[in-house]
C-alpha cells in the first residue's frame, strides 16, 4: 500500500524549503499493534493501537528544524511544512520530484499476526503459564505477555530520494516467580523477531521452561562474591554488555561531541587479535533488523571491531555528512514523532574458536554471568554497571553454585581489552534500547566471552 502520494510529498518538501535549508525530509508512518498479557492465571489488558502521522525535518548547516502531525491530510502536511520553514530566512530551494513508494516487507512473514485470532495469541500465553507452573512446585507466579507491531513507513527527501519499508515484529515474554519460605526469585525469558506469528507459535513452551528454570535455580543462589575476578559472559543476552559499554560509544553523535571514550580512536587496537564485532541491520528475521533505516538508507553489516582494532563508528545521514563518511544505515527513530539518531541494530561479537567449556575451564575462581537484568553506562567515560540476573560461581574451572545480587562494574575499553576468549556459539537476543527519550528494538548478541578481570560488586 502506498501511504502518501509522491506529488503531495514533493509539494510539502518544496514548502518546507521555501525559506532555505540544505535539505528536507518527509517521514510518513502507519503504526498498528496489539498486545495482551496473562498474570496470575488471568488473561488481561488486551490493547490495540492504530496511529498515522508524518514528520518533516529541515536541515540547515548544523541545525535541524522538525515538526510532526497526526494524520496525513494534505492541508495538515502543508501547514506543517510552512511551520517548519519559518525557522529560516534564506533563499528558497527546490525539492526534486520523488517517485511512488510502495512499502513491502523485506523479511519473510509466514503468518501475518493481525490475521491470527486473539484466541490463538491467548492460547500461547496459557501454554506458557501451564508449562512454567509444571516446572516445579516452587513456581509461585507466572506472567506472560504477547505483543505484535506493524510499522509501514515511507520516506521522501528533497534530493529526489524515496524509500519505504513494511516492518512486522512479534514478541513473547515470560516471567516466573519462584518461592521457597521467605526466598523469592524471578526468572525471565523473551523471544522476539522481525517476523510473523510463526516465530512465537513454534514451541512457545521453551520460553516458559527457560524462565522457570532461571527462577528455580535462583532459589539456591548464594550471595555473590565481591572483588576483581575473571568473568565468563553468557551468549545471547550477555551481548547487552557489548551494546551498552561499547556500542553506544561508537554512535557518531556521541563521538562527534567528544562525549564518547572511543572518539578519535578508529584504527586503534583496543582488543586482542581474535576479537571482531559487527552491527548488522540485515540479519534475516532478527529483532533489530529492517530493510532500510528511518532515513531510507539500506541497512548493512558494519564491522565495528576487526582483529581487535576499532574500525568504524555508526552513522546516520546527518552525522555522516559532518564526519565526511557514509551513513551506515543506523539512522533510527521510535516513530514519526521522533528525530532519527545514530542507533544500533543488531550488535554482536563474531564467533571465535573456543568452546564455552574451554572458557570456563580456564578460570580458577570467577563469575559466570549468564544474563543481565539491565545496566547503565556513561558513554563519555565508558563506565558501566550491570545487574547480573542469572549468575554462577566458577570454582576450579567448573560452574558451581548459582549466585544472587551480583553487579558488574567496569569500564568499556578496559573490559574490551581484557577479553581473553571468545567461543563459537553466537546467539542474538531481544532487547529494547533507550536513548534520547526514544525506545527502539535492538538485537544484542554474542557467543560466550571471557573477560580476564572485572570488578564484581556482590552482597557477600
Amino acid at each position, binding site marked *: 500500500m502506498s501511504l502518501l502520494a509522491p506529488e503531495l510529498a514533493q509539494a510539502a518538501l518544496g514548502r518546507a524549503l521555501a525559506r532555505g535549508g540544505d535539505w528536507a525530509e518527509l517521514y510518513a508512518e502507519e503504526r498498528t499493534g496489539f498486545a495482551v498479557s496473562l498474570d496470575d492465571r488471568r488473561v488481561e489488558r488486551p490493547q490495540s493501537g492504530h496511529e*498515522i502521522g508524518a514528520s518533516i525535518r529541515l536541515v540547515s548547516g*548544523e541545525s535541524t*528544524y522538525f515538526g510532526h502531525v497526526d494524520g496525513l491530510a494534505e492541508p495538515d502536511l502543508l501547514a506543517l511544512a510552512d511551520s517548519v520553514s519559518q525557522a529560516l530566512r534564506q533563499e528558497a530551494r527546490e525539492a526534486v520530484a520523488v517517485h511512488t513508494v510502495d512499502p513491502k516487507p523485506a523479511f519473510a512473514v509466514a503468518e501475518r499476526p493481525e490475521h491470527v485470532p*486473539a484466541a490463538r495469541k491467548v492460547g500461547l500465553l496459557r501454554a506458557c503459564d501451564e508449562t512454567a507452573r509444571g516446572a516445579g512446585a516452587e513456581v509461585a*507466579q507466572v506472567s506472560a505477555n504477547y505483543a505484535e507491531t506493524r510499522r509501514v513507513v515511507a520516506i521522501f527527501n528533497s534530493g529526489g530520494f524515496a524509500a519505504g519499508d513494511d516492518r512486522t515484529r512479534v514478541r513473547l515474554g515470560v516471567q516466573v516467580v519462584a518461592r521457597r519460605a521467605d526466598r523469592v526469585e524471578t526468572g525471565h525469558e523473551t523471544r522476539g523477531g522481525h517476523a510473523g506469528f510463526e516465530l512465537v507459535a513454534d514451541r512457545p513452551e521453551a520460553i516458559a521452561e527457560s524462565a522457570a528454570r532461571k527462577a528455580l535455580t535462583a532459589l539456591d543462589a548464594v550471595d555473590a562474591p565481591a572483588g576483581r575476578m575473571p568473568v565468563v559472559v553468557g551468549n545471547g543476552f550477555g551481548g547487552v554488555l557489548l551494546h551498552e559499554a561499547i556500542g553506544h560509544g561508537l554512535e557518531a553523535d556521541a563521538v562527534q561531541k567528544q562525549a564518547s571514550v572511543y572518539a578519535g580512536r578508529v584504527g586503534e587496537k583496543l582488543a586482542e587479535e581474535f576479537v571482531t564485532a559487527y552491527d548488522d541491520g540485515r540479519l534475516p528475521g532478527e529483532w533489530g533488523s529492517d530493510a532500510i533505516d528511518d532515513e531510507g538508507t539500506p541497512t548493512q553489516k558494519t564491522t565495528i571491531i576487526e582483529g581487535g582494532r576499532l574500525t568504524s563508528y555508526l552513522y546516520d545521514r546527518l552525522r555522516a555528512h559532518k564526519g565526511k563518511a557514509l551513513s551506515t544505515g543506523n539512522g533510527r527513530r521510535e516513530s514519526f514523532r521522533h528525530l532519527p539518531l545514530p542507533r544500533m541494530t543488531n550488535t554482536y561479537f563474531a564467533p571465535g574458536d573456543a568452546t564455552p567449556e574451554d572458557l570456563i575451564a580456564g578460570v580458577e575462581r570467577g563469575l559466570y554471568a549468564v544474563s543481565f537484568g539491565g545496566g547503565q553506562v556513561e558513554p563519555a567515560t565508558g563506565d558501566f554497571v550491570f545487574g547480573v540476573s542469572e549468575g554462577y560461581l566458577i570454582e576450579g574451572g567448573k560452574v558451581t553454585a548459582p549466585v544472587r545480587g551480583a*553487579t558488574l562494574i567496569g569500564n568499556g575499553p578496559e573490559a574490551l581489552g581484557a577479553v581473553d576468549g571468545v567461543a563459537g556459539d553466537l546467539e542474538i537476543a531481544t532487547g529494547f534500547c533507550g536513548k534520547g527519550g526514544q525506545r527502539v528494538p535492538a538485537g544484542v548478541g554474542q557467543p560466550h566471552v571471557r573477560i580476564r578481570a572485572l570488578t564484581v560488586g556482590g552482597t557477600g
Partner: protein
Amino acid sequence: MTLEQAASAALAAAEAAGATAAEAWAEEQRGLEVRVYHEEVESLTDAGGRGLGLRVFVDGRSGYAYGTDLSEAGLRELAASAAAGATAADADEHDGLPDAFGATPVEGLSSPGVEDWPTERKIDLAVTVDRAARARKGVTQVEQTVYADQRGRAAIANSFGFASAYEASSAWAYSSAFAGEGADLMTGFGVGLAREPGGLDPEAIGGEAADRALALVGARQPESRRCPVVLDAFVAASFAGFIGGMLSADAVQRGRSLFAGKLGDEVAAAQLRLADDPTDPGGIASAPFDGEGSPTRRNALIEDGRLATYLYDTRTARKDGRETTASATRSSYRSPPSVGTSNLVLDPGESTLEELVRDAGEGLFVTDVAGLHSGVNPVSGTFSVGATGRLIEGGELGRPVREITIASDLVAMLKAVRGVGSEARWVPFGGSVKAAPLLLDAMSVGGS
C-alpha cells in the same frame, strides 16, 4: 471535532460495538523542544498531536484501543478493536468504572507563559543555560542543553455520564556538562522544572550541571568501608520513585512488592514522611482527576515511619475491599489507566545539607547512582547499585570517589534514615518527586 465531542462519540461507538460500560480519554497537546550545542540551535522541534484511548467493558471483560483518527469511522474502528480485545480477556469481577467521579480544583496547572513566549526567547533561555555551564572554569564540554515545554488538554467521559477536562502546561530545561579529560572525565547534570519558561532559572540550571561535574574531577575508587551515607536530592528522588512503585496496590497484589502484608507496619525511621500528592500545583503530574475520573487527593504513604496505605485504583481497591486513592495514572492516551504515583513528596526536615554532612562525620556523599532498576530485587528489597560522589571527612565534603557499590535492602535503608534535609526541590528522577537530601546510618560501601 473537539476533544469532548470525540470522547462522547467514542462512547456511542463503544455502546454500538456491544460494550456494557466504556470510558474515553482524549488528549491534545502542543510542545516545543530546543536542543542547543555550543550555544547554537542543534534542533528545534515544534509539534502537536491529538488522540483518544477507549476502555470498554463487555460483561466483566475489559479491552482497550487507542488511535489518532478521531473521525466517526476512526472511532468506530477503535471501538470494534477494543470490544474484540475484550472477548479474548478473562472476566475480572473487580474491574470496572469507579463508583464516584469528580474533579478536585487544583489551581495553577496551566500558565500562559508557555504560549506567550516567542520561540526566539525560549531559544535564548536554552543558550543562557548552555553558556552558564560552559562559563565555569574547568568545564571541558557541554554535551547538550535542552529546553522543552508542553501545553495540553485532557478530556474524560464515561458511560455513567461523567465528563470533565483540564488544561496543563509545563516547561523544563536541563544540561549535561563534562569536566576533566580522558579517563578522568566526569559528568554533571543540572535541571529545572516549572509551569512556564519564566519559572526557570537558566543560570542556576547551567551552573548546577557544571558544579556537579567539577565536584567529581579526579574521582578514584575508595577502599571498602561501612559508614554513614548522605544521599543528595537527585539520588533520594530515585530511591523514592522506586519505593513509590512498590507501594502500588497492583504490585502488592501481584506479589511483586516487598511491602506486601506490611500495611500499618513500621517500615521506616520516624522522621521519614512520604506522600503522593496530585494536588500540589508545583508537581508536574498534578491533575484534578485521575486516569479513570476519580477526584484526586493527597495520600500519605509513610507517616511516622509506618506504612499508611498503598496506592489504589478502582480495580485494586475493590479487590482489597478498600476505596480508590485516585491513583490510576495514564502516561498518555496510548495506555489504559494503571496504578502509579503522581507526585511523590518527601517531607523536608530541619537540617541543611551542610549539617547532614557534619552529622555524618566520616562517610560518603552520593550524587549519582547507576543500575537502580536492574540492581534491586523488588520482592526482597535487596539491592546493589553503583554510586559516585564524595567522601565525607571530618564532617566536611572531601575527595571525589567513583566505582562504588552500595548494597543493602530498601527497608533497612528506610529505617536507617537519621536525618532529612530542609532543602527540598522538584526533580524529574523516579517520576515527579519533591525530594530532600537524606542522612543514613552506616551502610556497606564497596570499593577496592
